């Protein structure tokens, strides 16, 4: 036994171990666990970098009340090295905040508040900078200009062991003014290891989808092949600014509650509850305190000082919250994209023939208000052989990874698309020329991981998604049925017209009557009997006789000239659909914008 003890003596003593035990900085932790932030591989790292920078840029512009114009440039330095530059026209960053924002993990304006925004934790962009530094050794370069002040050019490194920024160079640069024609903005350049590949989960796809969900933003993208792509605006107004709200009692966990109580600077329980939470007034506060009082051996009165309360009282309070019915949180803090803007976004990036959108009323999960929106595009030039494409968004940010883990994906699968005229394999995605856009707006989007790739599967969320999908699906069903009816009518007519010639010839041969006259008469009759096939449209693009309720639906757009003819024999005179018809004047305006997009060329620099 003593031998064994001496042997174990070679191992560490508690003191020795203590000497090695020290703080792990957040930056160090993430440096070793970069996959948690979306830097698993070079390809994804490139995307994540662009994504974090663009998300920040959009958030900044919107908060500053500026219509965003964002330039993304990927410059390929070597096979696996890229220089990523993102420039926006936002309000800019004041000098002393630059290093904190770009050089420190978990620093930001968004983490501590309940407000709908793209970024949440404040790790994204600084993690990208850190990744660049780690893979290339090059610091991040930031040029930022605020209104009426000279531009600053700062290069900085992040000290991973201390989670502290380290400024390398710092100078005022009047030279940089050319980047900011509006007099303000920020430009970030990160040199990093990466891999560029087009297609799914690429920077291209991310920007395309961001343009759909943010039709108020203008993007200019230069890819590594030096091709410039522009994504112009679909609408010219900023979304309303999201209001900040206080947490709802039902959404709070016990630990968080205790933390909040500790952090509170004095006052009694009543004012604590009233000030820190939404939907708690004086009456609700005393009701909560009364219920909580019964749950603990200690006494709890409305006048109890908050910093005298211990764990017992906190738990009692927590349980009281769970039992008491509290009004749902305010939902005016949410800013949905809106049916009109979603349609505008889809219209300019997806070439379909039928578009429909639905915005659900706000709802609540775990005390967090949220709102689901769905838009679909169908037909046109979309591929009819493949499964439907699902574009997922959380607070206007496209989600490109982990589709099958996402609540939205499950919602699409469990919707019965067969009812709406699409084919759908058992327990699968619908098959057909369909693009589904699902957006979740919330003050706190429940992601399955820190890399923000999939929305967690809460029943309340999935239910709202399903209802929105059904709303759009129903309209698609109506449209498809009408389309097939019109097609059938046209087919009917062509059947008649085919035989009319034969019959009038026989009539002439047998009776000696004028065959041409008979032909004309029969053709008139055929046209009358199949009148629906060429529903006439007036100059406003509206159907002269109302054919269906879709026509007056603000949330539906039908592009008649985009309708694909699968059967060429269908219309001999080509008159099945005439001209372009849009559902509403606003939709027509959007159409103009699509046309302008067509003009957008892929210029080679």
């Amino acid at each position, binding site marked *: 036994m003593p031998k064994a003890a001496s042997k174990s003596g070679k191992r560490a003593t508690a003191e020795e171990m203590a000497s090695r035990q020290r703080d792990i900085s957040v930056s160090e932790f993430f440096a070793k666990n970069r996959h948690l932030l979306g830097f698993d591989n070079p390809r994804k790292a490139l995307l994540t970098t662009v994504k974090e920078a663009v998300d920040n840029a959009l958030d900044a512009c919107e908060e500053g009340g500026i219509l965003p114009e964002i330039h993304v440039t990927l410059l390929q330095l070597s096979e696996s090295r890229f220089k990523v530059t993102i420039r926006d026209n936002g309000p800019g960053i004041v000098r002393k905040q630059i290093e904190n924002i770009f050089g420190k993990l978990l620093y930001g304006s968004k983490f501590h508040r309940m407000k709908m925004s793209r970024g949440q934790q404040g790790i994204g962009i600084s993690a990208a900078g850190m990744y660049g530094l780690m893979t290339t050794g090059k610091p991040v370069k930031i040029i930022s200009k605020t209104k009426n002040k000279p531009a600053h050019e700062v290069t900085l490194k992040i000290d991973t062991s201390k989670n502290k920024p380290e400024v390398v160079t710092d100078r005022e640069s009047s030279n940089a003014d050319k980047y900011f024609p509006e007099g303000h903005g920020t430009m970030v350049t990160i040199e990093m290891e990466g891999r560029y590949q087009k297609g799914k989960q690429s920077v291209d796809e991310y920007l395309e989808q961001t343009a759909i969900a943010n039709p108020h933003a203008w993007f200019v993208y230069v890819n590594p092949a030096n091709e410039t792509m522009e994504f112009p605006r679909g609408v010219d107004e900023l979304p309303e600014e999201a209001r900040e709200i206080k947490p709802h009692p039902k959404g709070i966990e016990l630990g968080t509650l205790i933390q909040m109580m500790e952090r509170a600077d004095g006052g009694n329980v009543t004012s604590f509850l009233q000030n820190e939470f939404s939907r708690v007034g004086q009456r609700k506060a005393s009701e909560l305190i009364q219920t909580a009082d019964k749950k603990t051996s200690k006494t709890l009165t409305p006048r109890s000082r908050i910093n005298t309360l211990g764990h017992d009282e906190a738990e009692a309070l927590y349980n009281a919250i769970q039992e008491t019915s509290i009004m749902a949180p305010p939902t005016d803090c949410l800013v949905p994209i809106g049916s009109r803007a979603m349609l505008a976004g889809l219209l300019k990036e997806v070439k379909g023939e039928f578009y429909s959108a639905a915005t659900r009323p706000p709802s609540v999960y775990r005390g967090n208000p949220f709102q689901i929106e769905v838009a679909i595009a169908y037909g046109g030039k979309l591929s009819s052989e493949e499964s439907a494409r699902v574009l997922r968004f959380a607070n206007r940010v496209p989600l490109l990874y982990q589709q099958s883990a996402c609540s939205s994906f499950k919602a699409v699968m469990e919707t019965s698309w067969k009812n709406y005229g699409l084919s759908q394999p058992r327990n699968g995605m619908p098959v057909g020329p369909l693009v589904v856009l699902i957006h979740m707006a919330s003050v706190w989007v429940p992601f399955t991981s820190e890399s923000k790739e999939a929305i967690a599967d809460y029943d309340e969320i999935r239910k709202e998604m399903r209802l929105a999908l059904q709303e759009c699906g129903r309209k698609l069903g109506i449209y498809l049925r009408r389309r097939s009816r019109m097609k059938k009518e046209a087919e009917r007519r062509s059947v008649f017209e085919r035989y009319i010639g034969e019959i009038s010839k026989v009539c002439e041969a047998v009776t000696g009557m004028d065959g041409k*006259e008979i032909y004309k008469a029969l053709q008139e*009759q055929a046209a009358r009997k199949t009148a629906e096939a060429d529903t006439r449209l007036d100059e406003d693009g509206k159907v002269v006789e109302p054919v269906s309720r879709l026509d007056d639906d603000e949330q539906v757009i039908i592009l008649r000239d985009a309708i694909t003819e699968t059967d060429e024999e269908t219309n001999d005179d080509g008159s099945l659909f005439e001209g372009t018809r849009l559902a509403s004047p606003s939709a027509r305006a959007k159409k103009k914008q699509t046309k302008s997009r067509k003009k957008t060329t892929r210029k080679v620099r």
Partner: protein
Amino acid sequence: MATKKTTKKTAKKTAKKTAKKTPSKKSTAKRSRSVSVERDKVTSSKIVKMVEGVAKSSLAQTDPFLDIPVRSVSNMKFNTRKRILEMGENTQRRTLFNVGQARKFMQGVLLSKGCKELIEADKTLSLRGMYYMSLHTIEGTNEKTFNDQGESDGILEDLEVTLNGLREELHVFAKKRGTMVGNITIKDNGDEINCRKMGTGGYAIPSICEPDVIEFEKCEADFVLHVEKDTVWSRFNEDRFWEEHNCILTEGSGQPPRGVRRLLHRLNKELGLPIYCLLDCDPWGHYIYSVIKQGSINLAFESQRMAVPDAKFIGIRSDDYDRCDLSTDVRIALNDRDIARANQIADYPWFLDRKPWQKEIRTMLANGFKMEVESLITKDISYVTEVYVPERLKKKDFLD
């Protein structure tokens, strides 16, 4: 040798006797010509009237239509007095502006034009020829007017009933089927045919047996023996049965075609010859008898000119198995379809009031087997011609 002598004798005897039966009004080719011209005029004007109706309703902006009598059991009734099947009054309206009917409508009109052209040219065509005559690609499409002959055949039958004219009147004929031999001389389109000298093959009964084509010249026969099929007919012909029994021997290759039925009808009506049928003992044999006697359901509109209500059924019958002491090998078990069909036939109104027939069908069902005429060969090669049929004829033992 002995039998041969007797046959010759009887043949001579009957020849004298039946000379009287030669049709009194000896029709000439010329005369029938004028008959047919008259008939063609009528048919032609019917077609013009029908197409005029289509043209007029087209000009009047109404949906052109053809009212086509329904050719199915539902629109067929049994005339108990005449004992033939007749077509009812039900018609089905076929219109141009109906997606399901447009093509058929066009085909009907097209075929009527073809028929009119045939009549004007005074020529006849087979069903297949008719199909080709109206076959073309519709202008501006790659659709053909007819996909196959079957399509045109069906439409032609519709046209017959619509115009209330026979196929023959439309100058269309079917493939010929059926054979005749016996103590009769006929004129077929002016050519004299002596049916006593037809060798082993016999006279092929044409599809059109209208008086203007087939004329009866000289007939000495006492009756007509119709057998179901060619093989049995050959047996009778080789044994010179028609000579010995002074009769006409016909066969219809199963369900007799219109030509055979029309001929039987005319032999019965114009020459007064009784018709005896020798058919299999099975539901299909029974139905052949029924068609000869009352007419068929599909062609109920022609029963008037085809049915032979006093045709008699010689055999073979279900009790022949015991009566003739046949070997067990000839039994063919009834299958489910046979049983169902037998019950169906027993329920036809024209069988329903015939007790012997009800008994016959019941016996067959009780036996559980059917028999073909050929089964008699197991007794002796010529048993059927020398014993079976002569016995039945002598005893006048028929089913009616």
